[in-house]
């Protein structure tokens, strides 16, 4: 590791993130990489990873700190470990890694820089259009820290969908602090679907950032399917190029005593377009913060944050932020927090549904955001995940 990265990280080990509950990361400093426990295929499939299909196309699988499989059978697509990438392309690695996310950003990037192992490198070469999703899975089978550093590069005119499933064994507690940097070059189109299924003892602090050049577009879906101890993430998309576009959709379910703080930030440098959409459903005693921020000097941005509170002990805060400089930017937002209307339940019961079924239909409808940038199997998959989330919310 470069001394500069290490030095910056060391200085940030006690730097709390601006959002989310603060946890001590120093306990993870002394950890060694252990032999991973057995992979549980059912849990991997539960976060959208189809291993049989992935092995025929392109995939990356990491269990704890060990890379289990990484391959690409697709022409024009490279999938390797980030360590192999650094070995193969040291100059490019120096230029791209830790560029969009600083190792000293907060204590979680710091611990990832100091103790992180593995991570995928995905490169889709210029003009290559991949119809099958590239599947990646980060699985925690043992207690401790998982902090891969992922790098995704879509070269000029390339098109691809990446599905990342992150999950954990039920009895394993720890910290997941993955770093992901995306470079979406001129005219490239990236669809990125991230599905999380953690457990009640896990702290999760992913750090992601994307750079979009002229005419590039990115569609992001984030969905969390199960309980988590604490989760805080605020991916940042820098729309550097003119004509660049981002559509980010987060569907978040807060259950048990989870504390969840999820947002997306779009920074429009070029004449760009941003649309950030979120649907939060909270129940039990969970607390959640739905954040979104769009800022820029040119272009159009819109935020839509909607939340549903299903229990009298749950809490939800919606925090949309807009910031513009100059006369060439137009930003709007809409935010709402509510409960299921009794009138809607009664109506559906009058159509033959039980009260529970009616509530599930309404929650599913609430989470039923427009699926963009995905087709065929992936579109069906996202819709199915929404269905599972609605069921889990009941």
């Amino acid at each position, binding site marked *: 590791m470069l001394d500069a990265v290490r030095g910056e990280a060391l200085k940030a080990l006690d730097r709390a993130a601006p959002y989310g509950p603060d946890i001590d990361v120093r306990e993870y400093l002394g950890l060694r990489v252990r032999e991973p426990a057995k992979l549980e295929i059912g849990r991997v499939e539960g976060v959208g990873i189809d291993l049989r299909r992935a092995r025929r196309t392109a995939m990356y699988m990491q269990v704890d700190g060990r890379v289990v499989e990484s391959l690409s059978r697709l022409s024009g697509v490279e999938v390797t470990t980030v360590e192999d990438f650094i070995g193969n392309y040291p100059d490019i690695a120096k230029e791209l890694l830790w560029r969009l996310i600083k190792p000293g950003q907060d204590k979680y990037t710091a611990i990832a820089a100091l103790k992180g192992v593995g991570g995928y490198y995905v490169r889709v070469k210029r003009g290559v259009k991949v119809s099958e999703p590239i599947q990646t899975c980060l699985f925690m089978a043992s207690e401790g820290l998982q902090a891969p550093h992922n790098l995704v590069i879509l070269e000029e005119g390339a098109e691809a969908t990446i599905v990342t499933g992150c999950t954990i064994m039920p009895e394993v507690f720890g910290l997941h602090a993955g770093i992901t940097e995306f470079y979406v070059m001129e005219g490239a189109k990236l669809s990125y679907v991230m599905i999380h299924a953690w457990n009640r003892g896990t702290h999760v602090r992913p750090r992601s950032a994307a750079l979009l050049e002229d005419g590039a577009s990115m569609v992001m879906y984030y969905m969390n399917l199960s309980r988590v101890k604490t989760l805080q993430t605020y991916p940042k998309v820098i729309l550097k190029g003119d004509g660049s576009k981002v559509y980010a959709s987060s569907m978040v379910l807060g259950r048990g005593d989870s504390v969840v703080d999820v947002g997306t930030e779009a920074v429009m440098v070029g004449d760009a377009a941003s649309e950030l959409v979120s649907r939060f459903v909270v129940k039990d005693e969970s607390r959640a913060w739905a954040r979104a921020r769009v800022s820029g000097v040119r272009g159009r941005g819109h935020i839509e944050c909607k939340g549903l509170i299903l229990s009298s002990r749950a809490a939800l805060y919606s925090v949309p932020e807009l910031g513009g400089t100059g006369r060439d930017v137009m930003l709007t937002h809409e935010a709402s927090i509510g409960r299921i*209307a009794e009138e*809607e339940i*009664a109506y559906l*019961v*009058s*159509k033959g549904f039980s009260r529970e079924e009616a509530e599930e239909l*309404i929650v599913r*409808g*609430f989470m*039923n955001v427009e699926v963009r940038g995905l087709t065929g199997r992936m579109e069906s998959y996202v819709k199915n995940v929404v269905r599972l989330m609605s069921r889990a919310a009941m």
Partner: protein
Amino acid sequence: MLKLELKEVVVSVKGGTVVRHADLRVAEGEVLYIIGPNGSGKTSLLRAVLGYPGYEVVSGRVLFDGEDLTDKPMEYRVRRGLAITHQIPPKISGVKVGDLLAEILRRRGSTSEFKGITEMLRIEHLLNRDLNRNFSGGELKRVEIALTMAQSPKLALIDEPDSGVDVESLRFVARGVKEILNRSPFKSIVIVTHTGLIAKYIPPTKVCVMKEGVLKECRLPDFLKKALSEGFG
């Protein structure tokens, strides 16, 4: 044989009496119209018959197909074969018309009816739309009738199928109501109207007048024309 019987029913909403007295008998093969001015308690009565939350039968009995439903919840009454077509149904974001219709049919094991129902009610263009959001008056009614048709109830309570509907839509609505009637094993239906326009397509066999929360008097079909032209008397 009587299929629906209301005996001295009094209905209260939020503590206020909205139906002061209702006696009603619906026999097998009967197309019963309830007419009356706006605000006379017609919709409240239908909702109370279905057991809608907030519409409390404070006295009297509701008997359906030989069973006393007065104290039964709406879910039970719907399972027993009662259904309502709402005058003003709520908008539900994200719930798509097509999905809801398909789900109702799936539960009855009648998914093959989907195409026929959507074509009959001319709602194909609404299937991917959020339920009742930005619908015209005619579209609202056609979707409501389609959903009730999918339920295939023993007895449907149709609330104001002909209000706020253009002539073209009314034709499809009437066709749908007729189909609901045909599917009823009792060959009975209850229709609430204050315009009577639908009677051109589905003639009543009995006409009952509701005024100021009181429904007592039921007459022969000829009365409908007279009441609509001269007032509800």
